[in-house]
């Protein structure tokens, strides 16, 4: 039958002699790292600066925003000196018509110094095309046409040298003013994300990235992953409409820690998704209708840092069978442990009230992971039930968590010892207070 012929023809084609492969794993590693670097994807417990961020971000608060500047097609917003753990900082105010009318967004970075967000379109595996990184006041420094920012995600084994906001090694080129403030282009082929070589014609995609001062002393960069040589005027227009400030809805969390002893706090989410319930399904939707689900975040008590992942799109059912090694039943959820890497252990509950929940930390924290999990209350998949307070106020706990010696370490020591970059505080920043 035809189906058999198709199957056989496809098999023959697939089994035909493969020419020498041009696929390069090393190139994928380089390009992938470059993307991650640009997106500043901070993994839980993976990078020392993350732990440092944790100790100050909540206490200091986030933003000084001039009144009435929520929508600022003209004029600057306030300059962030810290980024909040519980609310996003920047959002795209306008995107080209070909983009969805209500673009959803994903933050890939949030430390106390840098905020990043990427617009996403629909539920695909693709990178969103427009990526924004925002640096806190005083973090980046300009010398001529060169802007240096801290590299908060250095490659292991390499010196932690400053980077340009767009990640390139090229000097910036003067760009048109953005909302009346200085701006520069970076444009080089080192940022190649895709090389097309079909039909014998090579083409190289260049990343074009705009860096501008969005407020006094605060720099932002905007780049495009998916469009070859995007129109410069378009990039400037998108940049000029970006809204800065803490007026966006707070993150929501689909699980809550209750009666968690110790001074645990939330580190800015590594990723969040704008969600909306459409019928029986959750969809990624625009900010005006959705809840900003913080899917991937970090909690710390100042000494121990744990990654938390609460996924409302479960991908698997539990394979945990009671009695198996590494498998426990906690609060009626089947929780199993598995090694993520040699330096990271994870426990997961793939079906916890229709959520896929995991906690991760270093191997020596495995016992702690189980104990912390016991304090999680799942809030289900209905955004209306989600909370903006992922860690409920500790009570005089009736379910004491065995004290970890490390958890009592004073926070300032942790901050001072682990921060690889200067972390200016509001009190020490040499920058002027943002004008109204």
């Amino acid at each position: 039958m035809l189906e058999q012929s198709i199957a056989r023809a496809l098999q023959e084609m697939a089994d035909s002699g493969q020419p020498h492969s041009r696929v390069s794993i090393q190139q994928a590693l380089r390009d992938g790292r470059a993307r991650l670097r640009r997106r500043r994807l901070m993994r839980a417990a993976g990078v020392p600066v993350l732990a440092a961020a944790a100790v100050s971000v909540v206490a200091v608060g986030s933003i000084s925003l001039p009144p009435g500047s929520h929508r600022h097609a003209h004029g600057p917003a306030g300059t962030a000196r810290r980024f909040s753990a519980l609310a996003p900082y920047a959002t795209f105010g306008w995107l080209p018509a070909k983009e969805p009318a209500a673009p959803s967004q994903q933050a890939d970075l949030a430390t106390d110094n840098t905020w990043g967000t990427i617009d996403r379109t629909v539920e695909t595996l693709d990178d969103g095309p427009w990526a924004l990184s925002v640096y806190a006041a005083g973090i980046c420094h300009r010398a001529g046409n060169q802007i240096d920012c801290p590299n908060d995600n250095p490659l292991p084994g390499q010196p932690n040298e400053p980077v340009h906001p767009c990640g390139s090694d090229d000097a910036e080129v003067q760009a048109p003013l953005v909302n009346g403030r200085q701006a520069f282009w970076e444009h080089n082929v080192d940022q190649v994300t895709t090389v097309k070589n079909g039909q014998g014609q090579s083409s190289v995609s260049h990343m074009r990235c705009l860096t501008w001062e969005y407020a006094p002393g605060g720099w932002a960069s905007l780049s495009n992953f998916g469009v070859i040589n995007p129109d410069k005027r378009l990039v400037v227009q998108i940049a000029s409409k970006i809204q800065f400030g803490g007026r966006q809805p707070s993150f929501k969390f689909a699980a809550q820690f209750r009666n968690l002893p110790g001074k645990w706090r939330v580190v800015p989410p590594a990723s969040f998704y704008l969600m909306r319930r459409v019928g029986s399904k959750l969809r990624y939707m625009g900010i005006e209708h959705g809840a900003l689900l913080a899917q991937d975040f970090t909690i710390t008590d100042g000494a121990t840092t744990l990654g938390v992942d609460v996924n409302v799109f479960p991908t698997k059912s539990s394979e945990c069978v009671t009695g198996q090694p590494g498998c426990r039943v906690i609060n009626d959820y089947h929780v199993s442990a598995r090694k993520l890497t040699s330096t990271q252990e994870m426990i997961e509950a793939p079906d916890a009230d229709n959520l896929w929940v995991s906690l991760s930390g270093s191997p020596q924290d495995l016992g702690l992971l189980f104990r912390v999990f016991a304090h999680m209350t799942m809030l289900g998949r209905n955004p209306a039930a989600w909370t903006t307070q992922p860690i409920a106020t500790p009570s005089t706990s009736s379910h004491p968590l065995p004290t970890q010696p490390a958890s009592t370490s004073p926070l300032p020591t942790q901050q001072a010892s682990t921060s690889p970059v200067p972390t200016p505080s509001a009190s020490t920043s040499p920058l002027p207070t943002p004008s109204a």
Partner: protein
Amino acid sequence: MTQPRDAEFADFVATREASLRRLAILLCQDWHRADDLVQAAITKLYVHWRKAKAADSMDAYVRAIVVREFLDERRSSWIRRVTLTSQLPDRAAAGLDTETSLDMRAALAGLPPRQHATLILRFYCDLSVEQTAQVLGCTSGTIKSQTAKALTSLRIALGPDADTADADSSGVAHRGSHVEKGLNHA
């Protein structure tokens, strides 16, 4: 390797590269583009490595990346699409020079990208309708209709002998105007 993530990634890709290239050549029908497709897909896999590891099947996950990357590329370049379908696909050739195989390959290449991808996922990857729908991000009903349309197009392209073809490769089809017509509508 500088970190465990890189080592795991490199190990995974090294063991899957050949199968990914096979899938890519079926989609692209051109080794240059197939390698570009795999390169782009594994780069994306690296970026989404943690999510991939949490998936039920990493193989299914990376396969989905390859197919969606292919479809995105086809959507994004009208010129490339037209150019591609105006000529017979690049062939590895050895052992495949039967008229039947050429006809079938040409007819497959003439299908719209999503129909083409649907047939590959169904009949080469042996995925169910539901699994194919998951990869392509659509409903099972869409997969059924895409499959039916693709088979209809192939029957038209291959002529009256299409359904009499079986495992005997000499039994299929006549090369001719139907195929050429099929090449033009992608």
